[in-house]
């Protein structure tokens, strides 16, 4: 199991991290292949249920990444997300998930390298955690 490619769902904000991801792409930075990006307008619109849904469906980890504090295009959506993610991390174990499967970061528009590095690092961490076993189990 050690050498599996983890599936990571990344909810990224349209303004900062999405730009960074684009920059990582155009700079041809090699990234692990199993990251699926979902562009949201703001991390503040990421409902915890999306994250739980992704984990229940077998995602090995979820990344939520937006603008740095103070940069939010919508004034303070990223701060709302931070609060929400902190609470979510506390209840994730109750759903049977290691809270390390959820990560929140700030990645600004010009930080393409940071984005690639974050994803790379997260992949390594999740590899160490092992596969989300819901992927192989049938959940009713």
């Amino acid at each position, binding site marked *: 199991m050690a050498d599996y490619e983890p599936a990571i769902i990344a909810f990224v904000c349209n303004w900062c991290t999405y730009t960074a991801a*684009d*920059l990582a792409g155009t*700079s041809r930075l090699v990234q692990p292949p199993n990251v699926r990006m979902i562009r949201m307008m703001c991390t503040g*619109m990421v409902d915890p249920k999306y994250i739980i*849904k992704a984990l229940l469906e077998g995602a090995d980890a979820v990344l939520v990444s937006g603008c740095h504090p103070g940069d939010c295009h919508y004034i303070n959506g990223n701060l709302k997300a931070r609060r929400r993610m902190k609470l979510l991390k506390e209840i994730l174990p109750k759903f049977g998930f290691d809270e390390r499967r959820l990560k929140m970061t700030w990645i600004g528009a010009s930080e393409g390298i940071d984005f690639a590095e974050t994803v790379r690092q997260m992949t390594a961490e999740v590899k160490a955690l092992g596969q989300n076993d819901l992927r192989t189990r049938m959940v009713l």
Partner: protein
Amino acid sequence: METKTGSALVIGAGISGIRSALDLAEMNYRVFLIDKSPHIGGILSQLDYQFPTDHCGMCKMLPTIGRDASSQFCLRKGLFHENIEVLPGTEMTALEGEPGNFRVTLDSAPSFIDAQKCIGCGRCSAVCPVEVPDQFNGGLTKRKAVYLPVPHNIPNRFMIDIAACTRCAECEKVCPTGAIDLRTEARRAFRILVVDDELVVRDSLKEWLVVEGFSVDMAASGAEAIDLFSSNDYGLVLLDVKMPGMDGVEALQIIREIKPDLPVLMMTAYATVETAVQAMKIGADDYLMKPFDIEALVAKVVQQYERTVTVKGRVIEVGAVIMAAGSDFCDPARTPGAFGYNLPNVVTGLQFERLLSGAGPGAGKLIRPSDGRPLRKIAFLQCIGSRDLKQKADYCSSVCCMFSIKEALLAKAKSGGEADAAIFYMDMRTFGKDFQRYRDLAEKESGVRFIRSRVHTIDPDADGSLRLHYVDGEGGQHEEVFDMVVLAAGQRPNRGTRDLAQSAGIELNPAGFCLTDELFQNRSSREGVFAGGSFAGLRDISESVIQAGSASLGASKLIRSKGGAPRASERTGAALQDVSKELPSLAVALCACASSLRGGLDLESFGKSLTLWDPSIRVFQIERVCTLSGRKSLLENMRESGCNMISIGACMPCLYGKMLVELAKETGLSAGLMDVVDIYTPAFRGDRTDPRQISGRIESALKMSIGRLKSADPGPTRSLSIIRKALVIGGGISGMTAALAIADHGFHVDMIEKDVDPGGLVRSLYRTIEGTETSGLIEKLISDVRANTNISVHTEAEVVDSKPYEGLSFLTTIKTKDGGEKRLDHGVTILATGGKEATTREYCYGMSESVITLHELEAHLGKSAGAAEPPGSVAMIQCVGSREEGRNYCSRVCCSSALKNALRLKKENPKADLFIFYRDIMTYGFLEAYYTKARQEGIIFIRYSPEAKPDVSIADGGKVRISARDPILGRDIVLEPDLLVLSTGVVPNDLNGLGQVFGFEVNEDGFFREAEYKWQPVNSKKRGIFACGLAHSPRSISEAIAMAQAAAQRALVMLNREEIEAGAVVARVRRSLCSLCERCIAACPYGARSRSEEKDIIEIDELACQGCGACAAVCPNSASVVRGFSDRQVMAMVDAALELT
């Protein structure tokens, strides 16, 4: 020739240019936005972090009203607006005609890479053998001769730096789309005639030029040259001045007779340089000095060559021109003294900014370029090339103090607080709103050291460190070793400003910036040509944005007055077909580009697997969707398939914003039902990647898009309207300027003034520092306001209450002078409530007639004008009650007012002794010259610190006595002046009441709190409310006028349209699920939600709603839904994303 009514040209696509262009585009004028560089963003494309958030917020400049007309992605990527034609790599070469009816000639730089064909794959750059310093990283890194100008720009097309290119043509060979054409043929066809009597000169010239790819003929004398000349066609002549027989000047005369336009460069030794200059008068284009600097010589020849290949003469017609060509930084390498810039690890502020950048040389890590060691001690040196008479820079660059504090804080943050940062400065100019607190926090909380000093020597120390020797404010000598020295290089006019001014027919000021009107700084010396941003002088981002708004207001007013109408707004919403009742019918278009890029990618099989997944999907392949023919073929395929939603697999989705809008018009399908997926970037994964993974990634991306589209809400966007009238609160200079600006656009304005007459605070200022009497300005504004039939003035009136009205407008009740009440309906509100001089009890004020405030002195000087005997000695104390807790901000105007008054007192009585006690002299920008002048006139400046303020006492008979310490003398002094003048600073008139009535925020100092300090300086967070003048922050008359115009401009964007289209991505409420818990109301950052008591529902102001989705995330019942991001859509994307992993 193209003709358009209601159009403008904006020169320079930096922050100000973008702001002006967006301003006018939002008003539905047609805008041409040109920039000589190959990308937009100007200097800001290199700065990742901006004060005061120390991050970025450029995107906040994008329209908030009618935002779907423009791109909605990071402005660093690029800009798209349906009314703006962005023309990078373009310069204006001629401006003819009259205001309102200009004819502009635009030249584009030659491009060796076809932007239509370049797909940005980077193979050319990989094979290019040439490496040159990368200017984007301040020269700290290298780049190839074929390169990306800005890494994050989109579309990101490669460029060729033809000066560095060796024309080896390796790139031409590897380009998969054949986009590169170095035009070596054209170079070979460019024939150069070298005329010199010395063989060695001729030979070496020929050798150099042939290497550059040109054809070269040689002549040994003038006569031989004329001979050759008659039978050959040359592109350029290099002509020696001193030759036996016919000399260069004679030959030139003959050449000019035969070919008047042929470029001729004279070659001369130092001894005959006079002759060469003479030759230029009779028609030579330039001269080259012997011995030749090969690089300079080749550059000049290439420049001549490029003129022949420049795409010339696109002529456009515009009503007005905005010059926003920006400014540059001084180059310490070219300044005498150099401040150690020749040493390793001495960098400029801009280079340091690149070192901090995630896209910079150190990938955002704080390391020293010379040895890769972590930076732990950094010195920032201020005023490099500013406030420097030797360099003819008798001005303050206005931005460097905050720039350096920001960089110091970033260095602290990046190093986890471990780096030591010290700022060596003369005066810390924290004159802007909230600057002082930022500085104080940097010092007290982050530990940035502020050292008032002059650094006189920088010596290299062991291992590349630097030893600074400096003298402190008291004359003490010190030295300290640092890892790196950062020079705050001052601002300079942009290179090329002189040529640009010449083509535009405008004058420059002595410092080389645009010469503007003293009070109306958006006006250049030519009517119809407006100055925006730092082109008009030294400005930071916030002031540049304000200046840009003021320039666009001027342009719009002029265009309008000359009959240029805004383009009729097309309601795309109305023309769209309503597909909400239809079944989803989905098509997928795949751009064939990606497969040509990577052989292993089989689009056929994608199509098959998609149709297997969902048989109702139709899939077709398009050859290069982004081209015109590609779009045509897409359109045909869409019509044929009869689909009502489409997912397009191509490259960067943001490239397609404009195309989707056009497709929407052509197909009648809402752009919300189209989606673009990047299938192209994944195809680039390094060759090691398993092709199956790549296909998996692309397929998954397509399925996610399909999932999202299938659950899309296909309804049309709503069209909204507001009452097209304005309310201006306050009748001072700002209020009247704003009212006139709006009224001149044909809208009705109610202006409320609490006093008997309009005029405001400026009535207590009699002259500007330049010496202009303010009474003329006030009288002119008052008579204009009274004469304008669109303005109703309500004097001695005040606002009682304001309520939402007809959905999106206001109904405001005012108390009139007869004690009655009046109701005014309006769609926008401008606050121009002004401010006043602060009161004080410090320094024995009120205990003697000899202690007066600055305004009292102004009144005295204004009225007495030479009548009473001028005082023999006057002391002034600055920062009374300001810049310390309680009122911890700089009032910005007191230093220049004190200088103005001191200079006047000195003029009236040259023998008068004048003393100014100060903390930091805040003569930012060109005001610095008055500080220099004051010192030259013998006015004595004595610095004090807030810990040791001057001690003032009143002796018997009311005589003032001041005891203080003079740091320069290093001893205590006692003064007994005839008059003591206290600069008490500016406080705003009380805004709290209005804040509650209108729902805007007031900051801790009582000023209006803007939506965003830099990017939206005049907006409130609440829609439809704007502020200007002293209600916003202390400012001078000309700055208040500019701000009033900028506020009016923002208001006009809303007033100028009959109907405003709400955004496609806005929140809705599903009433059946809503439990009226009101959590969404609290979550909305724009106050766009309210509970309607009568209908008992949550209502949404769709103009204010920006679609951030905060409401949807907090709603416990999923009753709040953001269009395009509904739960079903996001869940469908999650499903699709995980299906293939």
